[in-house]
């Protein structure tokens, strides 16, 4: 199943996963094409606004301000939603959130639950939890549907099936939806998804969504989308459950005037996405009769407690950093083996997952070129945070072999006598590994590192030795 490696089984290191990914030519081509399309569009629509930089300043500042006021904003949001007939739940971790959702969905008498694409519910592994409870989650976002039908993990925040091209999607629909006549014309593929899901929307009992933001002072929850599946779920279901990370709350209604400009332009390169739904609790005669808002911590307070890493929580999940990333371009999203791929994943995942459960290699999956920070609409210093995460990984690995070797090296370099003795020792030890003046093979812990590298051999005579010999001669 699409159970996620990052949170369940043993972590997979980025280098080994990436090695497999970079040899998958089809995926790389698909990702490159998609990246080029989206980059061009983002640049064009951002350039249309001459106050773009001022919007970024405001976006960064308003997210920071909301984070620093979380203690007040969350109870305020709770109060507003409750007063409008909604029910607010709090979940310390993924397990607790899943329990709440399963309980509410069961009580509503559902066997099938509709889902709007939500990274947060991917993060907590909600689909697997629903299935374990005998409920059938049905993804309604086109790309999520593709992933669900293909039994694959999403590979991109915004376009989870970015790794698949139109022909691959056509083949999948032909096979899984029994549509033998289908062509790979995107319009026809969209039409197929519409026909496939329509009946499910019309009979929807329970729907689950994430949230792009929630405004504390008005109790408004905001979902931004394109296809209309979000509207279907948040409008037609009898019971709506929204799972939202606690960091998504903003203070004021007018904060939306900033986010609703930054997000669509950075995400899909549109001036505005086709549909934005804004609602508060329940509304008599319009939409669901029950609304449940699940406020999720699951590592967010841990990131909040690290003043250096805290800005990672500003993230509005636009995926502009991913589209700009040269490493992602080569590997695609699956190599990260995490819900959040790309640059944002490399700094967010270690924070959310905590000291355990996370491959320490992720923050190293970057060349620190800074392309991500240039595009981030809320000005997260992604390269700076990558270095911060690397530091944490290295400090935690000090105990290991690498730490011991570095300490030994420090001692050797500190004294001339020890250094020269080490040189003579190395000259003897390297002998079997040297070909044409280069060390070509490595043993023990260096074997992996050396499989694609070589080193200049320690020369038969150093300059100092030659100088000393010359005097004697």
């Amino acid at each position, binding site marked *: 199943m699409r159970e996620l490696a990052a949170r369940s089984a043993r972590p997979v290191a980025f280098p080994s996963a990436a090695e497999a990914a970079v040899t998958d030519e089809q995926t790389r081509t698909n990702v490159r*094409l*998609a990246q080029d*399309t*989206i980059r061009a569009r983002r640049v064009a629509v951002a350039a249309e*606004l*001459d*106050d773009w930089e*001022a*919007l970024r300043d*405001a976006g960064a*500042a308003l997210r*920071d*301000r909301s984070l*620093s006021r979380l*203690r007040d904003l*969350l109870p305020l949001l709770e109060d507003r939603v409750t007063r409008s007939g909604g029910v607010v739940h709090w*979940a*310390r971790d993924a397990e607790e959130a899943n329990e709440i959702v399963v309980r509410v969905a069961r009580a509503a008498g559902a066997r099938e639950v509709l889902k709007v694409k939500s990274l947060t519910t991917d993060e907590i592994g909600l689909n697997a939890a629903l299935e374990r409870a005998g409920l059938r989650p049905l993804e*309604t*976002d*086109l*790309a999520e549907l593709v992933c669900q039908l293909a039994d694959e993990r999403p590979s991109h925040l915004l*376009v989870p099936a970015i790794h698949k*091209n139109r022909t691959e999607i056509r083949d999948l629909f032909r096979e899984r939806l029994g549509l033998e006549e289908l062509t790979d014309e995107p*319009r026809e*593929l969209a039409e197929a*998804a*519409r026909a496939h899901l*329509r009946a499910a929307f*019309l009979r*929807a009992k329970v729907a689950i969504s994430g949230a792009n933001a929630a405004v504390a002072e008005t109790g408004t929850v905001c979902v931004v989308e*394109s*296809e*209309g*599946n979000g*509207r*279907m779920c948040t*409008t*037609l279901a009898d019971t709506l459950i929204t799972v939202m990370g*606690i960091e998504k709350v903003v203070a004021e*209604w007018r904060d939306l*005037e900033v986010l609703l*400009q930054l997000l669509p332009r950075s995400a899909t390169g*549109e*001036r*505005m996405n*086709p*549909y*934005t*739904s*804004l*609602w508060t*609790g329940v509304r008599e005669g319009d*939409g669901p009769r029950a609304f449940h808002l699940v406020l999720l*911590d699951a590592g967010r*307070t*841990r990131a*909040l*407690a690290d*003043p250096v890493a805290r800005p990672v929580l500003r993230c509005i999940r636009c995926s502009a950093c991913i589209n700009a990333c040269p490493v992602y371009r080569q590997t695609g999203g699956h190599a990260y083996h995490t819900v959040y791929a790309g640059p944002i994943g490399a700094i967010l995942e270690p924070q959310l997952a905590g000291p355990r459960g996370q491959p320490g290699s992720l923050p190293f999956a970057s060349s620190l070129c800074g392309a991500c920070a240039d595009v981030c609409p809320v000005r997260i210093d992604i390269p700076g945070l990558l270095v911060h995460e690397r530091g944490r990984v290295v400090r935690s690995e000090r105990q290991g072999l690498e730490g011991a070797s570095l300490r030994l090296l420090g001692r050797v370099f500190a004294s001339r006598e020890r250094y020269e003795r080490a040189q003579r020792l190395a000259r003897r030890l390297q002998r079997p590994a040297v070909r044409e003046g280069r060390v070509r093979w490595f043993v023990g812990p260096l074997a992996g590192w050396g499989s694609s590298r070589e080193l200049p051999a320690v020369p038969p005579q150093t300059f100092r030795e030659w100088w000393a010999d010359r005097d004697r001669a």
Partner: protein
Amino acid sequence: MTAREEILRRINVALAGATAQPVPRAYRVAGELDRDGRVALFRRRVEDYGGVVLESAAPGETIAAVLAERGARRIGVSPDLDEALLPVGVEVVADDRLTPRQLDALDGALTTCAAACAETGTIALDGGPGQGRRALTLVPDLHVCVVRRDDVVETVPELLARLEASARAGRPIVLVSGPSATSDIELTRVEGVHGPRRLVVVLVDRPPA
């Protein structure tokens, strides 16, 4: 300790010593265009995303023509829609809590809107007079929306300011920018997924209500 207490306690500990900084709002709030300029921009932007825009002095007739052209014979309206907008020659069904299936059987929906934004080609619905509930403008495949020229603002901040009172009153709001679309296939925009695949905007002068 309940989950609520525990999370709020964690936040308190995490934020010890943190202070809230003010938000610089140097971005553009008010637009500069006059009404004609706003309407012209709005028109271009809606068309850019695949919507159709018509100007009309006689909305009832224009709407009837729009519907006839698209073969729409049964359309849903909010029970409080201004009668001056009702087209002749088509069956008008008042949305009196129709079920989703009944909505699905309609050929289209005809509504007004709360406001519109030129810069992004957006129409905003907040359940006010003539707009109906959210399902009405979602399930039928065609949405014909009457927009008063005076209700077209230029910028996104202006649009949201217009909607603030509705938000505070707890009324659901939907922002619509063009017909339903997806960018999920190779990141190219394709129109027409789950929401109405056709969006027609009819610009009028006189207040419909």
